[in-house]
């Protein structure tokens, strides 16, 4: 059957070729539409401020003002003040390390119990766990805020990472699905060798589950890097701001007038995500596949 399809494809003929050209034309047009905001972003970030505003627009900056990036990081000016982007970056990375470590450790443990241990109430609790994915964040936002406020944690990083050490439905689901594909015989063999359940988890399952764990790590990192509402609610002192919150504050305070510097700062926040994508395409695709499956 497949051969039949292939021969017909090969027989294509001139009509098919014309279609291919047409398709390329449409795809190219869409590519231009999808790329131009990003091109405009990088282009503006390398311009002199007067050139950034110039009409008709200049696409390729001349000269290339690489120092915009340095300026965006440490802009000393009487009016604009000092924007500690380096500090924001450090804060964001610290938070990301804490949330990624927490999510990987806690969700792996919990998913292991759901996937590979037999215990009373397991299936009921797992169903309940899946149901919690329906709860929108704004519903629980106020009581959780009140809780942290009573603990005196508002203004610290703690509200932004502590929760990650206690598991989350989506990651539990993702890891459970993966753990179930690992042959039970491996666990049984380890048990015969005298391994405890925790040793099986740590020495048999975890090393095999690296692909799934890296998906959890990646999406937790992205969640933290992209989060805005959390930092907006909990961070008060500008010194503790994350990159996202800092960029918003920067834009908000200065009305975006030095657009070249604002775009340089924006590029700095976007670039790591895109670079990460090129290094971890496989994990990205797996993560998307699971999100698509969730329903």
């Amino acid at each position: 059957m497949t051969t039949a399809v292939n021969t017909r494809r090969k027989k294509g003929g001139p009509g098919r070729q014309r279609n291919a050209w047409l398709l390329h034309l449409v795809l190219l047009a869409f590519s231009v539409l999808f790329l131009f905001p990003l091109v405009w972003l990088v282009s503006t970030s390398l311009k002199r401020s007067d050139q950034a505003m110039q009409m008709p627009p200049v696409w390729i900056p001349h000269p290339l003002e690489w120092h915009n990036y340095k300026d965006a990081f440490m802009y000393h000016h009487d009016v604009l003040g000092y924007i500690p982007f380096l500090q924001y970056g450090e804060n964001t990375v610290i938070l990301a390390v804490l949330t990624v470590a927490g999510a990987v450790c806690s969700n792996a443990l919990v998913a292991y119990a759901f996937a590979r241990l037999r215990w009373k109430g397991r299936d009921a609790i797992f169903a309940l766990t899946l149901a919690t994915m329906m709860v929108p964040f704004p519903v629980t936002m106020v009581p959780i805020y009140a809780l942290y406020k009573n603990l005196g944690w508002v203004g610290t990083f703690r509200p932004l990472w502590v929760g990650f050490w206690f598991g989350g439905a989506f990651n539990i689901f993702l890891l459970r699905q993966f753990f179930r594909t690992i042959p039970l015989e491996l666990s049984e063999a380890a048990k015969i060798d005298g391994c405890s359940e925790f040793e099986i988890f740590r020495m048999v399952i975890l090393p095999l589950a690296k692909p799934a764990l890296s998906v959890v790590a990646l999406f937790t990192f992205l969640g933290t890097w992209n989060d805005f509402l959390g930092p907006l609610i909990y961070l008060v002192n500008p010194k503790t701001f994350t990159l996202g919150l800092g960029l918003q504050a920067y834009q908000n305070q200065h009305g975006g007038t030095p657009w070249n510097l604002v775009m340089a700062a924006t590029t700095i926040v976007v670039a790591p995500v895109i670079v990460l994508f090129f290094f971890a395409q496989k994990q990205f695709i797996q993560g998307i596949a699971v999100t698509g499956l969730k329903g």
Partner: protein
Amino acid sequence: MSNSKRETRTALLFVSPWIIGFLVFLAYPLSASIYYSFCNYSVLKAPVWVGMANYRNLVQDDVFRTTLVNTLIYALMSLPVGMAVAIGLAMMLNAKIKGQTIYRTIFYVPSLVPGVPLAVLWLWVFNGKQGIINAVLQPLLDHVASALSIVGFHGHLNAPQWLSDAAWAKPALVIMSAWGAGNAMLIYLAGLQDVPQPLYEAADLDGAGWWSKTWNVTLPMLSPVILFNGIMGIIGALQVFTIPYIMFPGGSPARSTYFYAMYLYDNAFVYLKMGYACAMGWIMFAITVILTVAAHKLSDRYVHYGGS
């Protein structure tokens, strides 16, 4: 101790982080939030029971209605556009065309841009005077206007003031969401690759053209994904916050971009009407649950699942 008891104990140790997480970050906040929704609560003082007052006030609150309607309109605008772009791109890429990987990357990468930089970037792109969209659009419109002068049209065609005209603010957000359709595109592309080839061959034998194949084979086979994305889209629209919050402070212009989650946030953290915010949260939750249940009912009845 029996074997199964020991296994249960070990298992409970493994799930204990989630049990604590569930109790502290879900069960407690959910019950506290439903209690607060019947209270006057400012977080600074203890909550005071007011019965149904918050819900009664919501029904009469014009701003609440505005934000709900805005959110619905935005969902109804952005969902079809986003779906059309995502499905259209996926179908073109599914044609086994040369350079597929490059095109796929180009369409996907914009969806990676995080909310805050996305909002800031598009503030610049949509800028009324120096924005790149209007810089390209205005000369085109000038040409059109001068061409129209032949038929007696004497006037100017002005490019939209995307950020300050209440009629264009929502369309601006729709354009931005379509730009981020790459993620959905990948999900549809995976769905398309699962469509069994024999279905197309049978359609070919029946002499079906491209349009008929799309309508009678491709879209029905994609319907579970379409339904899932549609429902998730409406639920997602209820939570849209970051981008309009940054681009349109206070839901400007003329509250046209004041969305549900923004009003909820303002009630909680600007006006410190936490009880009111919780009531809004529960209405959001109710809508979410109703939509999810409806999706399951609908999918049982209308959606075509391959193989079953």
